[in-house]
């Protein structure tokens, strides 16, 4: 019995080491479902909500939209687990430190990509998210750094949604894929996972794509296959049972919704310190994450790097619960009232 438990623990530990590979698979799922959705999406502002509504009314496109939503949710969920696993196995030594810092960059890119996705929904939450972006940049950051309005102007007016769409569908995914390649060059577990592909034979060079003997029995490949299958089944089941939300048509000048779950911790900080906190809190979190390797020692046992990460993630989770269960607070309405006075 004890041996079985030890084996299970060992299996789970090995599975945790390839969560980065699962992230690649989930990214693939979101890209494919996103491409299909893009065929039915209209970036003309007057038509956006109607096109999204039409997507939800057709069973096939509704399923694809739900699939896109749950694949993205699973991606951010797995991303948190992957970062935690890496923090606990200690990003010490040059390659792992670089992999960690590039990973923090990836986290920022994925966060931006998901925010852009929220803008594109064309519903009430969409305009509230945009209002946050607009007031945050123009109303707060531009007071200190006026040149920021160049960015805001670029993402304003009738072409705003089209430009957001191009960034969401092309620019940021391309950035993510490029940074993943660099991330993979440094990450030891990723390099170990791609090892089965490293082996070159005369036949491969001649162009014969025969898998090497034992290729599919490689533990990392087998586990990746299993994880992909499980993730696919989970996403399909969730997509069939729980549809992705779509709120009412947008009504400007008011804030009545809450953000998606992974950013609720920022909402909780906003509830306390107001809209300005929305800009400062993520910067502090990314700075803390970036500092983790600096406190990590290359020796056995926990150190301040591990503790720093665990304290940060515990605060994020606690604030997330607060944001989810607490009352809805209209931050932008209060900010705009203050601005007009």
């Amino acid at each position: 019995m004890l041996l079985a438990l030890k084996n299970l623990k060992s299996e789970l530990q090995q599975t945790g080491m390839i969560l980065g590979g699962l992230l690649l698979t989930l990214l693939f799922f979101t890209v494919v479902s996103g491409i299909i959705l893009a065929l039915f999406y209209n970036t003309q502002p007057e038509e956006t909500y109607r096109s999204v509504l039409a997507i939800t009314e057709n069973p096939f496109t509704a399923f694809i939209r739900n699939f896109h939503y749950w694949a993205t949710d699973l991606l951010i969920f797995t991303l948190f687990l992957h970062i935690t696993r890496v923090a606990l196995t200690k990003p010490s030594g040059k390659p792992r430190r670089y992999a960690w810092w590039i990973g923090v960059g990836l986290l920022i890119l994925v966060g931006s990509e998901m925010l852009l996705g929220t803008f594109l929904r064309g519903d009430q939450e969409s305009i509230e998210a945009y209002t946050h972006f607009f007031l945050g940049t123009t109303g707060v950051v531009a007071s200190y750094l006026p040149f920021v309005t160049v960015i805001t102007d670029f993402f304003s007016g009738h072409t705003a949604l089209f430009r957001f769409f191009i960034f969401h569908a092309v620019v940021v995914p391309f950035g993510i894929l490029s940074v993943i390649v660099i991330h993979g060059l440094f990450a030891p577990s990723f390099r170990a996972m791609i090892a089965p592909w490293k082996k070159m034979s005369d036949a491969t060079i001649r162009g014969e794509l025969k898998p090497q003997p034992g290729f599919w029995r490689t533990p990392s490949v087998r586990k990746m296959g299993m994880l992909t299958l499980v993730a696919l089944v989970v996403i399909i089941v969730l997509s069939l049972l729980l549809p992705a939300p779509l709120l009412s048509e947008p009504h400007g000048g008011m804030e009545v919704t809450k953000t998606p779950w992974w950013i609720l911790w920022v909402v909780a900080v906003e509830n306390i310190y107001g809209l300005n906190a929305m800009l400062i809190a993520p910067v502090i979190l990314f700075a803390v994450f970036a500092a983790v390797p600096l406190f990590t020692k290359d020796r056995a046992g926990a150190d301040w790097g591990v503790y720093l990460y665990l304290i940060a993630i515990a605060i994020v989770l606690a604030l997330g619960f607060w944001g989810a269960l607490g009352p809805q607070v209209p931050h932008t309405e209060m900010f705009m009232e203050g601005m007009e006075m």
Partner: protein
Amino acid sequence: MLRPKNMRTDIIFWFFLPIFLVGTTAFAHGGAESGPETRHPETQIGLPGSRMGHDDMGTTTGGMTRGEVAELIEDTQAVEEKRSAIKLTLLTLSIVGLIYLYFPRRSTVAPLASTTTSSPAPQTPLSASTAAKTDDIERRSP
């Protein structure tokens, strides 16, 4: 001490940074100074419903009060709040599981005096079987 190559990079950086800042600030001057009307999001994005402009009182938009809009989204929002709480609970439990699996503990075995300098301490709590399998993968690659 700076090497010539680094100095060149520094000079290029410090040359372009002020030009970029001054240039963009001058370009953006109009936008930042043109008052709350142009800074208002509803006058900027063209989503339907948001094009009505901003009401002075901030209470109605497109003929709907804040309460009416809140009512429109009430059910979906309640479901989303529940889902968010469940997702956060699952994430918390999963992170607790990861802490159980990977928390780096100090070795309870006393190091041998003669080998401490040659063999580094384990960096991860992975079991010996994982290490063996990873070694196997590495060995099979050229």
